[in-house]
């Protein structure tokens, strides 16, 4: 599935929710079911600190593909982080670097990725792209 297809799939999933309560319940579910980062990577080295909640992000590069795992101390943050990982993980660095993540706005969670949000998610997204850039540079 391409990044674009994954985004459309998520938009479709969220389209059934009428109100924020359902949407947040689903995020909690996503947060609870996410494949968590290996404990050995839950260290200072992999932490992205927000003012309110922290995110851990680990990346690995296997056969030209970048795989991400994540975790957070706040469950809503974890749910949104899970969506970012679902969309960007398993792709070539170039696709990750060029990805336009329109789904965030479409499902009404763009406020969580605004610079004023202190949850570390915007920094997480930047970090995901930076990993991709680093792997691409290493590869060329």
């Amino acid at each position: 599935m391409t990044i674009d297809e994954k985004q459309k799939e998520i938009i479709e999933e969220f389209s059934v929710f009428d109100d924020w309560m359902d949407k947040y319940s689903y995020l909690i579910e996503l947060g609870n079911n996410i494949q968590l980062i290996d404990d050995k990577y839950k260290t200072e080295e992999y932490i992205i600190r927000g003012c309110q909640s922290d995110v851990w992000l680990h990346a690995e590069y296997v056969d030209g593909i970048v795989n991400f795992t994540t975790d957070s101390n706040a469950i809503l943050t974890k749910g949104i982080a899970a969506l970012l990982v679902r969309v960007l993980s398993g792709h070539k660095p170039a696709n990750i670097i060029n990805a336009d993540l329109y789904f965030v706005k479409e499902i009404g969670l763009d406020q969580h990725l605004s610079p004023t949000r202190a949850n570390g998610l915007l920094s997480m997204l930047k970090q995901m792209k930076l990993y991709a850039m680093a792997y691409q540079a290493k590869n060329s």
Partner: protein
Amino acid sequence: MCKLHNKLLSNRLVINLNPKILEFKVEQIRKDFPILQQRIYNKSLVYLDNAATTQKPKQVIDTINEYYTKYNSNIHRGVHFLSEKTTLAYENARESVKNFINAKHEHEVIFTHGTTSAINLVAFSYGEKFINENDEIIISAMEHHSNIVPWQLLCERKKAKLKVIPFFSNGELALDELEKLLNEKTKLVAVNHVSNTMGTINPIKKIIEISHNHNVPVLIDGAQGIQHTGVDVQDLDVDFYAFSGHKVYGPTGIGVLYGKEKWLEEIPPYQGGGDMIKSVTFAKTVYNDLPFKFEAGTTNYIGAIGLASAIKYIESIELENIFNYEKELLDYATTKLSTIEGLSIIGYAKEKSCIISFVLDGIHHFDAGMMLDKMDIAVRTGNHCTQPIMDYYRIDGTIRASMTFYNTKEEIDYLYDSILKVKQMFN
């Protein structure tokens, strides 16, 4: 006897004579605050983030609007009508503040950008004059970062030392420790009037008395104090008292440093610029008299005029009415929230302002804050710029509901119901 106390006594008398006149009608008061009338996410806003900033009554908004619309002109320098009009209003604002805090002189009231800049002013200017290597400054473990970092910067600059008064697990200051920390090297004590995180009202009169017994002056960070307890600087005998306009129902970007005349005369200016000088040559500059010596450049004069309007507004409601109502609200909220299983209140001081910080078992404060936001409740979550308090309780944040006189018991009931919903969603 202090002026405020006199005022309170006289109010009580009036209340006894005619209870109807001064009856506190919160619904009536709420109408003065336009922002409380609007709907967020299509519901009525429940604003419980008053320790971060308070809302502004229309009287304050109208004053600011009027001055920008009709009278805006830079103060002190102009000879024309507008400048004189604004200068007069600005200096009248200084007089209002002087009366509000019962300072001895108007020139002891310095307008700043807020509490932070007032504390930084003292940390710089007092520090330049009086702090030397190995001197000590005492703060408390429940300070806001803005009453920690300026002193750390000063200590770095002057190779001085910072000492810290600890607090007990109920959120009360360990006052005995102050006595032990004070010595001949101590040059200043800087503590807050009210903790912005726990709501503890510190015994500042006692702190000042103990410190003065050792000939050490005291700065009080009044950012959370003055609007909930009132202040009489002469009765307190405080050396410096700092507060912010925007937390007293006035505009942002304006604050006050009260300083005793003798200190303000002795310490050097903080910033250089226009208005703070008498004469400038390349050989020598002669500084202006108080208070202008500390008001370099164009001040936020319309902010000051707005602050005076806010003071006038709360005085029209009567401070005692406000404080009594807030106490009632705090007691109601504490009792009600305490019944929620898994909710722990951080800070149980006997003397408390209307701030309730709490944590919920197994629920991250950010998650709770996000949920409450969607239920139209504005609370603050996180460490509230008091990381040492979080370290003490071994938590990384709290949910803080900070109330004021326009909040209602119905809003507390709604907060209670909403917390139960949050718990339901996460557990």
